[in-house]
Structure formats: structure tokens, C-alpha cells
């Protein structure tokens, strides 16, 4: 290996090691916390859910690796490397190998933790995810996905890849498809394709190829007179914030919703009639479909909301690109900046949330109703109508999705909820806001360390319960201190704080009185645990409202708060 190759590999390792640590650290913290749940008897479906969880977090990690932390699908090969006197082939393979080593290390770490965790639960090895069924396919996927991401015209290719996958999942029986994907041959095929494609991708990108330029739609004519002046600086700032962060996010959420609508329409229109024909009860089958839609929709939108919040709160992209100077020299105080920022955040979440709900409702409900009418005769149409009326409430359920958090939380072994926690952790870490990171660390690190070092200690659960109470107190005091500091610097107004306290009361504390926490109280014990969690979640929301202006103020003036 010559000096240039070594330097390139070192640079990739250096820039990626923090990212890999964050992602996999978050996954492992969740796994370690799951030990609490594992001490209780696990049922088959819980094992399956845990497998789903591990696979999901690993897949997210692999995709995040290829996108190199900024979550941008346009994250091409590092352009500055093109200036080096190194041929494309060596550039591609060196960077690919360095990143692959990181991704593989992270995968192995996660897989090892998973195996240990399951072994502790007394699950026999043949029921675990196997090395060839987990690490190899994901490693192969990483190599292929990374090469595709480097290709010019990657967006079109990714869309094509996604379409092929959807068709595959819809058309081929999962009993055939999943073993085929998990076969070592598939992994090898993807790996070979990735390794072979990478130099060509880098070469084409270096030469400035634009393969799909001909399909680009004609630019909309934009005349200066066509757009009126902004009403106020706040409106201008909100517009900039929205254009900077949200458009792609909203489109992605809508796209996912549209794909879900198509997939679920297919399920109800073609699979359910077959199920009914083979003896299934229509209402029961529709009920299952509804449950799936609600779960998936709820999960997707809740995750989308968290991601949107993270995108909104995370500002270092602006700071990295030097945009901060452009923004911060405008004559506006931090109250104005953060106010327009939160308004933008509310707007994109509203657009994403309700846009997706409407797409799903229209796409799914109406299409299926027509299909049922055509295929099922009068009885089916009657039930279809009832079902459609039921689904009329979908947007409403979507709006109330956050209220289901305590209930979902109560199902502590639910894979979907575990995925939420993993994503939440990842997102919180990804935000990069020092106050939020500090609060996460205070909340989670001591229990994680305790559970890691003394997994069999009888006092373990008691310690976790006690610590979560103490941490909530510490965070409450810290949040109050930061709030007072922000008030002194006139960085926050009282309205959002009061709103959050009210929301905390309604969304988290009210279900407590309705008994939504009963399952978690029974499962973990400690009657005040649920209350602690509710307060902690409200505190995190409050902390965010205070932390964003504080961080904006600090960064605007080059550090320091006083």
C-alpha cells in the first residue's frame, strides 16, 4: 500500500469513526436497555420483533454510512479527492475499503451485542439471526449501495432500485424472496457488483457526467416581478429556513406515504379477496389490514416527525457551509431567528403529516373501495363501505398519533417502539445540540453502564428506576437554569414554554389518568416510573425550545453565553 492510499484510507477512517460510533452506540444502548425486558419471559413474536429491530437499526446504520452523516442523498463521492493525482480506480477502491471496514466493524459490534443479549435470554443459537443471514447481506448491500450513491444520476437509479424492490416484495412469495436475499450468494453478488461499479462511478462523476440530463423538466420561468416582497423580516427568514431544510424532507414523507398507499391497496385489493375466498372472514382480514396501516402509518409519521424535528433543530449544516454568517448578519435578534425557525418546523411537520395522511386516505381508501366493489359483490361492498367510513377517521388518528406514545411505550418489547427509541436516540445524537446531547447522556449513560457491567445484579432494575428519577430531576433543574439564562438574554418568549407545558399535561399526563401506563407499571414495576417518563419527555421538549435559541446565540457570537 503506497503513501497516497494509506493517507486516503486514514482520512476516511478519521471522518467516519465518530459517525459509526454514534449510530452503533445508539443501537447498542437500546439493546442493553432491552435486557430489562428480556428478563421477563419472551414469546416467539417478541423474538421475531427483536430480530426485526436489529435488522432495521443495522440497515439504517448501513444507509447512514453510505450517505456520510449528512443524510443527503446527493452526498456524492468527496469531490475534493478528485484534485489528488490518484487514478479513479484507486480512489474508489481505497475509500470504499476504508468505509466498508468501518461499516463491517459496526455491524459486527451490533451483531455481537445482539447475540450476547439473546444468549442471556436463553434463546437457542439456531433461533438467532445467523452471521450469513445478517452480517453478510448487509455488508454486500453496503458495497452495492455505496457504489450506486457515487454514480452520477443516483436519484434516478435509486428510484429504479426502490421500484424493483417493491415489485419483488409484492410479486414474489416472501418464503422464496427472503431466503434468497439472505443467501451468501446474494451477498457475494451485491459485493462484486459494488466493487466493480465503484471505479466506474467515481470516474464518471470525476469527468462530470450527467447521464439523465435529458429527462430534466424544463425550468419554470421565474421573473423578479412575479414574487411579491416579504411582509416582514420574519416571513423572509421563515422562507429561507423552509427552503434550506424542509422541501426534500416533506417530499420524502409524501413519497413514502404514496408507496405505502400503493402497497396496502395491493394487499387489500388482491390479497384479501384471496384470503376471503379461502375461508377467511372479511371483516377480520380488513381489521388486520387496518391495524397494519395504522401501525405503519403511525410509525412512519412519528418517525418522520422526529426526523423533521432533528433536521429543524440541527443547524450545523448551515454552520459548516458558512451560511451562518450570511444569516447572522441580518438585523434580527435571536428571538426572531428561533421564532421563525420553530414556525418553519411546525409548518413542515404539518405539511408532511397531513399531506401523508391525505395521500394515504385518498390513495388507499378510495382505490380499495372500488376494488372491493368490483370483486366482492354487495356484501363486500357493504363491508367495504363500513371500512371506508372507518378509515375516514385516519387523518384524525394521524393527528392524534403523539398521544399514542405512552401506550406504545407501555409495550416495552414491541419492536416498533424499540425502533422508535433507536431512531429517537440516533436523531437526538444527530442534532448535535450540546444541551440536548448532555441531557441524553445524563439520562441514559449510567443505566447503560450499570446494565453492561452488572447485567445479573438483582438491584439493577431498582437502580435504573432510581436513576431515571434522579436524572429527570437533574434535567429539570438544568432546563430551568437554561431557561432563566435565556430569559435574561431575552432569547425566549414565554408563549412556547407555556404551550409545551400544556401539551405535556394533555398529551402525556392525561393518558396516565386513563390507565394507559398500566402495562408499563405492571411490567417494570414502580408506580411512579410512568410519571417520571412523562415528565422527562415534556422536559426534553422544553429543553429543545430553550436549547435552540441558546445555541443560536452562542454560535452567532462565536462562543460563550454571558
Amino acid at each position, binding site marked *: 500500500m503506497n503513501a497516497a492510499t494509506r493517507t486516503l484510507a486514514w482520512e476516511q477512517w478519521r471522518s467516519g469513526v465518530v459517525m459509526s460510533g454514534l449510530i452503533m452506540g445508539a443501537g447498542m444502548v437500546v439493546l442493553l436497555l432491552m435486557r430489562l425486558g428480556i428478563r421477563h419471559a419472551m414469546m416467539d413474536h417478541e423474538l421475531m420483533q427483536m430480530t426485526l429491530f436489529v435488522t432495521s437499526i443495522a440497515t439504517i446504520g448501513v444507509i447512514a454510512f453510505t450517505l456520510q452523516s449528512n443524510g443527503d442523498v446527493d452526498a456524492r463521492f468527496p469531490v475534493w479527492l478528485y484534485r489528488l493525482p490518484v487514478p479513479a480506480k484507486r480512489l474508489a477502491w481505497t475509500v470504499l475499503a476504508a468505509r466498508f471496514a468501518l461499516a463491517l466493524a459496526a455491524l459486527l459490534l451490533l451483531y455481537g451485542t445482539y447475540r450476547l443479549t439473546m444468549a442471556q435470554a436463553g434463546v437457542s443459537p439456531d433461533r438467532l439471526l445467523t452471521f450469513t443471514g445478517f452480517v453478510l447481506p448487509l455488508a454486500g448491500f453496503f458495497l452495492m449501495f455505496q457504489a450506486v450513491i457515487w454514480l452520477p444520476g443516483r436519484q434516478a437509479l435509486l428510484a429504479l432500485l426502490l421500484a424493483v424492490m417493491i415489485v419483488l416484495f409484492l410479486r414474489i412469495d416472501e418464503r422464496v424472496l427472503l431466503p434468497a436475499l439472505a443467501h451468501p450468494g446474494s451477498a457475494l453478488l451485491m459485493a462484486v457488483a459494488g466493487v466493480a461499479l465503484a471505479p466506474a462511478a467515481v470516474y464518471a462523476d470525476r469527468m462530470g457526467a450527467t447521464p439523465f440530463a435529458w429527462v430534466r423538466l424544463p425550468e419554470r420561468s421565474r421573473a423578479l416581478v412575479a414574487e411579491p416582497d416579504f411582509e416582514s423580516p420574519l416571513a423572509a427568514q421563515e422562507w*429561507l429556513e423552509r427552503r434550506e431544510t424542509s422541501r426534500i424532507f416533506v417530499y420524502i414523507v409524501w413519497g413514502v406515504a404514496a408507496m405505502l398507499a400503493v402497497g396496502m391497496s395491493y394487499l387489500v385489493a388482491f390479497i384479501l379477496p384471496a384470503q376471503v375466498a379461502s375461508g377467511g372472514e372479511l371483516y377480520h382480514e380488513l381489521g388486520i389490514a387496518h391495524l397494519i396501516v395504522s401501525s405503519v402509518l403511525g410509525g412512519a409519521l412519528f418517525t418522520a416527525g422526529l426526523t423533521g424535528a432533528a433536521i429543524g433543530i440541527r443547524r450545523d449544516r448551515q454552520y459548516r457551509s458558512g*451560511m*451562518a*454568517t450570511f444569516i447572522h448578519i441580518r438585523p434580527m*435578534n435571536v428571538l426572531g431567528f428561533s421564532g421563525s425557525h420553530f414556525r418553519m418546523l411546525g409548518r413542515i411537520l404539518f405539511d408532511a403529516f397531513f399531506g401523508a395522511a391525505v395521500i394515504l386516505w385518498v390513495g388507499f381508501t378510495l382505490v380499495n373501495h372500488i376494488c372491493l366493489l368490483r370483486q366482492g359483490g354487495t356484501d363486500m361492498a357493504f363491508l367495504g363501505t363500513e371500512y371506508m367510513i372507518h378509515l375516514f377517521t385516519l387523518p384524525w388518528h394521524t393527528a392524534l398519533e403523539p398521544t399514542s406514545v405512552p401506550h406504545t411505550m407501555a409495550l416495552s418489547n414491541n419492536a416498533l417502539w424499540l425502533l422508535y427509541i433507536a431512531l429517537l436516540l440516533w436523531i437526538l445524537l444527530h442534532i448535535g445540540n450540546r444541551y440536548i446531547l448532555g441531557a441524553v447522556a445524563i439520562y441514559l449513560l449510567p443505566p447503560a453502564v450499570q446494565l453492561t457491567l452488572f447485567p445479573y445484579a438483582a438491584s439493577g432494575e431498582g437502580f435504573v428506576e432510581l436513576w431515571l428519577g434522579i436524572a429527570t430531576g437533574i434535567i429539570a433543574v438544568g432546563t430551568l437554569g437554561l431557561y432563566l439564562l435565556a430569559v435574561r438574554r431575552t432569547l425566549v418568549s414565554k408563549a412556547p414554554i407555556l404551550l409545551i407545558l400544556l401539551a405535556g399535561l394533555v398529551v402525556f399526563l392525561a393518558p396516565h389518568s386513563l390507565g394507559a401506563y398500566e402495562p408499563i407499571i405492571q411490567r417494570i414495576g414502580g408506580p411512579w416510573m410512568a410519571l417520571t417518563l412523562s415528565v422527562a419527555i415534556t422536559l426534553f421538549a422544553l429543553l429543545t425550545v430553550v436549547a435552540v435559541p441558546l445555541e443560536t446565540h452562542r454560535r452567532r*457570537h462565536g462562543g460563550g453565553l454571558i
Partner: protein
Amino acid sequence: MTERFATETIFEPQGLSRRFGRKQALSNVTLTGTKGRILGLVGANGAGKTTLIKLLLGLLRPSAGTVRVFGKDPIAKPEEVLARIGYLSEEREMPGWMRIHELIRYVKAFYPQWDDAYAAELLDTFGLDLRDKVRTLSRGQRAKAGLLIALAYRPELLLLDEPSSGLDVVVRRDILSAIIRSVADEGRTVLFSSHLLDEVERIADDVAIIQQGRLVASGPLDEIKEAHRRITFRLPTPQDHCPELPGLLMSEGDRDTWSALCNGGHEACRAALAQLDAQILDESVPPLEDIIIARTGKTLEGDES
């Protein structure tokens, strides 16, 4: 120069210091910017020019000392101070996705005094296309776009960080100089940093020379130049070293003929040379570049002299 404005203080850093970790970027800088004058900030790369400008904007918090701009603290009252400042950054940071007309629309919203006619005139002068995206602009075009949005609301204080960087020679000599001059003639104040000394000599009323974070010299350009003399003389007997002269900053020679650059006390210098029976061959006001080299021991490109 516009003498009628020359008494009102616009910005005033006092004992200003800024440290980045272990690096002292700016050390004990005291300076005054007066209304209607053009201050040229001169120094090598990394001397602390951009740090000083950012401290004036409130984009950095001083490690020590105070800053007042229009009599106010730019950190305590950013919106009041920044409303009266136009700033062109060295890196020309602007969102790459914006089109020129979007850029104008966004910036315009913050400044009620925005002058549409002047913006249109600048747009025409700079030859910018409203439909172009910032990311497709050349470095020079980005500088022009940055200048446009810094100038079009006629700010009372214009802070330009290396404004010539990326501009072609015609725009630099004719357009930029004319704009800066006209800004000052309207009673507004300009501070611009540059390492192009001919440009500073051509445009600036006042000059501040910074070296390694320290203010080496500052004051009206004419006075600074007048305070220095390059004296070329011949000694009666050749010497290996230039004789000690009052205010001597730099000397070069070939044992019998020497050229000395002195600061102040020209009479004393002449008297000292007379005592040595030296014959003065030439005496002139040195160019700014020679003064800076004599003061800092370096050229602005950082070469040791």
C-alpha cells in the same frame, strides 16, 4: 476625503483581543473609524483583519476589550447595529440554491431603506442575471452579487473583507473604487481589508496596519506616509553596517551608499547624517508597501524581508 464628517465616531474597538484556543488572533487593538472616511485595513493573510471585522459585526465575542459601533455593543444590540451595516465577507457566503432575484428578495426584507433603483443600477453595472443561481456563479460574479446586497440599502457603515478578491482588474480599478468613493462622499463610512497596497493607496483616507494580531500603525494615510522618509546617502568611508539613525526602521546598502527608511524626526536624521559627513543623494516619501515591510519585516504575502 470628506472633512465635514470627520469628527463623528462610527466604530471604536478599545483594547480589543480575541483568542482562538491557544492562538491569539487579535491583541489589544484600539482604533477609531470616523464618519465619511474610508479606512483600509492592511495585513498579511492570518494577520487578524477578518477577526477584527467579525468583532465589529458582533459575529465574535471579544476575549478582552470592548467594541462600540454607532455607540452600541453589537452583541447586546445586534439588530440595531446590523441594520446600519453592509458587509461583504471574504468567503462570499450565500446560499447556493438561491437565484439572484431570490437573494435580493430575501435580503431586501430586512432593510426598510432598500433602494430598488440603486439595486437595478448595480445589477446592470455588474452584469448579473436575475435568474442565475448562486452556485453557478464564478468567484467574481459571487463577489459582485455579494457587493450588490451589501450596498443596495445604502448602509451607513460598509465593511468589505477583501472586496477585490476574484474581481477582474477593470471592475476592481474602476467600478469598486468608484463605488467606495461615492459611499464615502455621501457621508457614509467604509472599512475594507486588502492586501493590494496600490488599491489601498488609491482609495483609502485612513490606514491601519495589522501584523500577527497587533496594530502596528494607524492613522490618515497621508500622515503615515509623510511621517516616513526614504533617505539615500553616501558615507565618506565605507561601512559594513548602516549607521544608527534616529527613527531608523530599515536599511539596505553596499557599504558606501545606503538607503534608510526612517520614521519621524527627519531633521534629526539629517543632522545625524551631517555629523557623519554623509552626502544625501535622495530623499522621498516611500510607497506604503515599503513602510509596511519596514514596520513588519514582511511583505503582505508573508515573505520575510
